């Protein structure tokens, strides 16, 4: 306990420095600004703004990126409530009742409770990260390549099970992502794989390029093909502070949402995506009058928003303790850390404590700032949402081009976001979800490296993955999950959860 307090006070002493405070503020602000734009989720926002942090010191850069992440998340919720366009999967649920509230003239209360719930969830999640950081890091040191490989297999299986739609298609997307990650020079043998002899592919495909193509450009193409149906709330936003009765109604959902979100967020394989859905289902089951749901029930905003934010934050845990990015946002964080010369993993906490704890402390500060910045600025976001899409998408496209060009100064990177955007768009039109592909890509290199090492240690015997106890346990969990997802009965329940 003492060490926890001393660690946190070290963190706050770093994060409360004038410069870092300013960076957290700017990060939250810019993140919200871009995240509010319809059709721009956190991944595209971070990829676009990555270059902005290049000139900063490592601590400052990561603090700012974390701020951008929370800002983008919150911006997505704002868009979901005000115009019923969820920027990403996790705010789909918020759009249901949040937008219904907004139509009844309670947009202010919906935004307010989303901010309050998120702040509470963020506070709890920050404490959780601080408390779990040290023990999990110790546990991580016990992990060898065999265990790491099995853990990543589990993460991928989670992603398959949690993705909406066909399991077969999700598996295929993961395979494609893994395959794409093997493009480039093989570090062990020096062989060039699938590079077409082109020098710009020797280092492999850059994650930011793939992410921006699939989440930035493909999203523009998808939106262009759809008739614009922007249902912007007209009239008043109403007062932002929820009434006392509403606060009382929301208290328990916030608590439950925070718990669910924190638990789901820690899971490897983008568990955070499921947290808001789970919270919505739980609140609907527990509600005295479930028929209110979908028509503007405040619990249905408070619970899922808290779950969303808690999950967003605890998904940092696998990255900070094990060095495994659990989703596309965390993979961009890996990219940012690598550029700053930090290799994510258990050694960061011991080797660079001021960075580790400073970042954790800044998470809490970031959440507080969101509360302070967003509520007074709602009017600005509403103005921004009135800009028609025909003027927004050229801006998004330009930011994508500038952002990706400034990362490496490579013209080929710019061309590749176009190529991946087009490819992603075609896959989307064929009914494939790109998110599992990104996760496969993120984990691919780490998986191959660990597989190779594990097999060297076991002298080429694949049985090592089931004879080592930890690894066997992880693989058992994965196979149970996969079987459960395929068995028709449970599958129907899963589809219902997504249909809601």
């Amino acid at each position: 306990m003492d060490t926890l307090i001393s660690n946190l006070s070290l963190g706050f002493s770093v994060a409360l420095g004038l410069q870092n405070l300013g960076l957290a503020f700017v990060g939250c602000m810019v993140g919200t600004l871009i995240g509010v734009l319809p059709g721009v989720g956190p991944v595209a926002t971070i990829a676009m703004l990555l270059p902005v942090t290049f000139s900063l010191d490592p601590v400052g850069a990561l603090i700012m990126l974390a701020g951008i992440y929370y800002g983008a998340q919150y911006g997505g919720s704002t868009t979901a409530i005000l115009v019923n366009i969820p920027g990403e999967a996790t705010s789909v649920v918020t759009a249901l009742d949040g937008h219904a509230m907004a139509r009844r003239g309670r947009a202010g209360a919906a935004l307010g409770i989303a901010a309050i719930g998120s702040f509470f969830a963020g506070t709890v999640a920050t404490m959780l990260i601080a408390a779990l950081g040290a023990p999990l890091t110790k546990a991580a040191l016990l992990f060898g390549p065999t265990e790491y490989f099995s853990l990543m297999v589990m993460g991928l299986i989670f992603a398959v099970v949690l993705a909406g739609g066909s399991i077969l298609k999700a598996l295929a997307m993961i395979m494609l992502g893994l395959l794409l990650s093997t493009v480039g020079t093989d570090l062990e043998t020096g062989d060039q794989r699938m590079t077409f002899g082109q020098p710009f592919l020797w280092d492999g495909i850059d994650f930011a390029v793939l992410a921006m193509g699939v989440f930035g450009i493909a999203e523009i193409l998808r939106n262009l093909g759809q008739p614009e149906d922007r249902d912007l709330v007209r009239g008043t936003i109403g007062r932002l502070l929820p009434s006392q009765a509403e606060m009382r109604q929301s208290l328990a959902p916030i608590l439950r949402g925070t718990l669910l979100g924190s638990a789901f967020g820690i899971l490897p394989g983008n568990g955070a995506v499921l947290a808001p859905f789970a919270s919505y289902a739980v609140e609907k089951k527990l509600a005295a009058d479930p028929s209110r749901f979908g028509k503007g029930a405040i619990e249905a905003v408070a619970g899922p928003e808290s779950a969303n934010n808690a999950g967003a934050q605890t998904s940092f845990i696998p990255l900070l303790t094990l060095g495994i990015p659990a989703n596309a946002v965390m993979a961009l964080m890996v990219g940012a850390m690598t550029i700053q010369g930090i290799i994510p993993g258990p050694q960061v906490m011991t080797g660079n404590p001021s960075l580790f704890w400073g970042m954790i402390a800044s998470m809490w500060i970031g959440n507080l700032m969101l509360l302070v910045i967003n509520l007074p600025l709602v009017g600005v976001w509403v103005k921004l949402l009135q800009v028609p899409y025909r003027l927004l998408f050229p801006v998004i496209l330009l930011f994508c081009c500038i952002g990706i060009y400034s990362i490496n100064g490579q013209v080929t990177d710019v061309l590749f976001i176009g190529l991946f955007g087009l490819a992603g768009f075609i896959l989307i039109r064929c009914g494939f979800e790109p998110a599992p592909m990104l996760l496969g890509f993120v984990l691919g290199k780490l998986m191959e490296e660990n597989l190779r090492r594990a097999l060297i240690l076991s002298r080429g015997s694949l049985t090592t993955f089931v004879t080592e106890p930890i690894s066997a346990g992880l693989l058992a969990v994965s196979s149970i999950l996969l079987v459960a997802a395929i068995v028709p009965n449970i599958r129907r329940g899963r589809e219902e959860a997504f249909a809601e």
Partner: protein
Amino acid sequence: MREHDTQPGGAAPDSPVRVSQNLAGGLILVALAAIALWLLSDLNAGTLGAMGSALMPRVLAVGLGLLGALVAASSFFHQGPVLEHLPLRGPSLVILAIVIFAATIRPLSLGSVSLPGFGLIVAAPLSIIICGFATREARLRELVVLALALTPTCMVLFGDLLNLTIPMLPDALMDLFPEGWSQKAMLRVSAATMLAVAALLFFSGARSATDDAKAKD
């Protein structure tokens, strides 16, 4: 933009076959897997104890091919959603805008063709205007104002405040400035000029619009 407004409910009436999403998607994946296997053909897979460079990608490619084949095969058992007509206007103009940005941002030489670098001051407006026409609702004047306002903002933000190394101005323009001007001063002056033109266009446009309205009254 509204390609499928005219063709509600799936494939175009004039298309001879209704291809399901699963069939098309599955076959694309099989093709990708085949390309990967072909590219990997001259690499060594090694053994499990000493993995060669081709082992993991080859296994993955085979897996991808099998899954793709399964997805394609599933379309014969139940049809599933039908692949809609791919719109042409949006994707081709967006991709063209990206290519133009890449071609003009810095000097380019492709075989016998070579272009001087024009920098952001040319690349950004070109790509904004071209990609703006990806939707049928595009209005040229509006896009020109957007391009003239957004470009200088980006120039100042990325070049001046954040010091990112993006080429900003073409050499020809920089030669026009008097001797001894710093890069940043040139950047600021060009940005200010563009902003002024944008403001002029915007307000003259607004005035002519109100004049029209008055004339109608």
